[in-house]
């Protein structure tokens, strides 16, 4: 199904998509998108949505299954509380992407904004993954409770990651391709070198990631990664006990 979204409000457009999904449609191409919110939100089927234009906030919120490809920059709140599926963005994205994300993959070619992966979480085999090819703003992985984030800095911009990295982090793992200024680390995280298992894990995701965006896998893997994990699973466990 192809929709010309020029001048369309998000409500009728998303209803068209939901109705078509219910009647078995599997492929969607949305043209002339300009800020329509909630694209793919709450969808449970394994459909593919291609977005041409700038999608609005909270794209793929509560999404559970679909694959979304965006041929532009994204905005704020992408993959909010997403449960399953895959998002591939051929551009940069805004703030609070992956907010409370609990499964699925979010692959961004360029830069990501502030508070990426805030309060991501995991449960058993439900492990959300965010990979960004460029740089990240402040509060990367704030209050992160689970999941996996990889930041590559392939465009060489400085700084690679902003201040307050992993503030409040108490679960999950981040891999950053480069050094992190110690003064920019949250109190709740520590830096480590990668071991063999780490290399295997990131290699698996990055192979797929590089395939989508045309990055050279060997070049990506040749960088020196820093692994960040939380110091404590309960950083505030004693906050109110005195």
């Amino acid at each position, binding site marked *: 199904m192809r929709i010309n979204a020029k001048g369309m409000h*998000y409500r009728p457009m998303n209803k068209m998509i939901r109705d078509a999904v219910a009647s078995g449609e599997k492929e969607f191409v949305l043209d002339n998108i*300009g*800020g329509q*919110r909630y694209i793919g939100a709450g969808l449970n089927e394994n459909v593919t949505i291609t977005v041409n*234009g*700038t*999608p*609005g*906030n909270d794209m793929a919120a509560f999404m559970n299954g679909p694959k979304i490809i965006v041929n532009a*920059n994204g*905005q*704020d709140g992408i993959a909010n509380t997403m449960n399953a599926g895959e998002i591939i963005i051929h551009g*940069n994205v*805004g*703030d609070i992407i992956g907010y409370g994300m609990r499964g699925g993959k979010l692959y961004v070619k360029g*830069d990501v*904004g*502030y508070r990426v992966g805030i309060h991501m979480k995991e449960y058993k085999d439900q492990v959300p993954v965010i990979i960004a090819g460029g740089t990240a*703003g*402040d*509060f990367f992985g704030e209050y992160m409770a689970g999941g996996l984030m990889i930041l590559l800095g392939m465009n060489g911009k400085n700084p690679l990651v*902003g201040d*307050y990295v992993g503030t409040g982090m108490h679960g999950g793992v981040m891999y950053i391709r480069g050094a992190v200024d110690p*003064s920019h680390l949250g109190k709740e995280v520590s830096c480590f070198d990668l071991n063999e298992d780490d290399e295997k894990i990131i290699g698996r995701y990055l192979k797929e990631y590089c395939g989508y965006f045309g990055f050279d896998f060997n070049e990506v893997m040749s960088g020196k990664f820093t692994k960040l994990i939380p110091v404590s699973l309960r950083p505030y466990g004693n906050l109110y006990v005195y």
Partner: protein
Amino acid sequence: MKCDGIPSGCAISGMMSEEGKRIDGSAIIRSIACMHDRSNGLGGGFAAYGIYPRRRDMYAFHMMYDNAQAKENTEEFFYKYFNIDKDEAIPTRKQKGVANPPILWRYFLEVPVNKLESRSERDYVSNAVMKINSDIEGSYVASSGKNMGAFKGVGYPEDIGEFYKLEEYSAYIWTSHGRFPTNTPGWWGGAHPFTLLDWSVVHNGEISSYGINKRYLEMFGYKLELRTDTEVIAYLFDLLVRSHKLPVEKAVQALAATFWKDIDRMEPQQKKIATALRQVYGSALLNGPFSIIIGHNRGVIGLNDRIKLRPMTAARKDDMLYMASEESAIREIAPDLDEVWSPRAGTPVFGTLRPEVE
């Protein structure tokens, strides 16, 4: 104007031609309309610079009156303190979604030199604005700068723009606001932009330091009568840049002050400046979430709070600078851009009229 105290977030968009090209108001309306769902119909407004070239040296007062009495009292005040070159109704059209407007009138004023005494002309005009807002019942100044004006009211911004016939004005700077009031009432005087002289501010967020900022500004004679936090931002720029003559960069650093932990890591000279700014202007520090666009006669300033609790995207195309809460609002009016970026927290974006442009 009704101010019923219904507790009622926001959208901002701005555009500027650094070469001073004048653009009609239809584009900025389309841009802010793209973010319709960020507002709730309780406030919309626009600031436009370069719209009164034939009276560019006069103060253009855009007034909002509750009733004829307020208009009469204010005009008496104007006769006493100014030379009125011209006054007229601000042109409007009937517009669905815009109800019960106040009386909207504009005046082109000159300051009689013999009235100035030892004050500067701008201090004189600023005092007049404060007097009207606080002393004349039912009378509010929407804007008071030269060759600029604010057009605001209760409604969705695109409806307010149609209401004021903004397609008939040409400006080299346009800023706009769609309101979703949360802590303060939605009323005509409380719509953005907030202005004083050439300064205008559109703001998404809330200034939690409002009380401290208000008390600080009152020490310098400012009167905060508009029942909305954003008012302090306009007056702080006026105080710091116009009165205290701080460079704009330093004024911005005073408002979105450097964190002490970052000051500790600065080079000695920078450290001294940053420390002095925090010490002298502690009460001017803006706390709480904000993304703002400040307009003035020579340019625009975009600024986020220090930890970026509100969104802002900036873009350039040739001599045009765009800033908005969402990239889509920029793409709506400028699909092909040379550069698009998200300004970092507390880091200003400047649009500046080229020096050769008068």
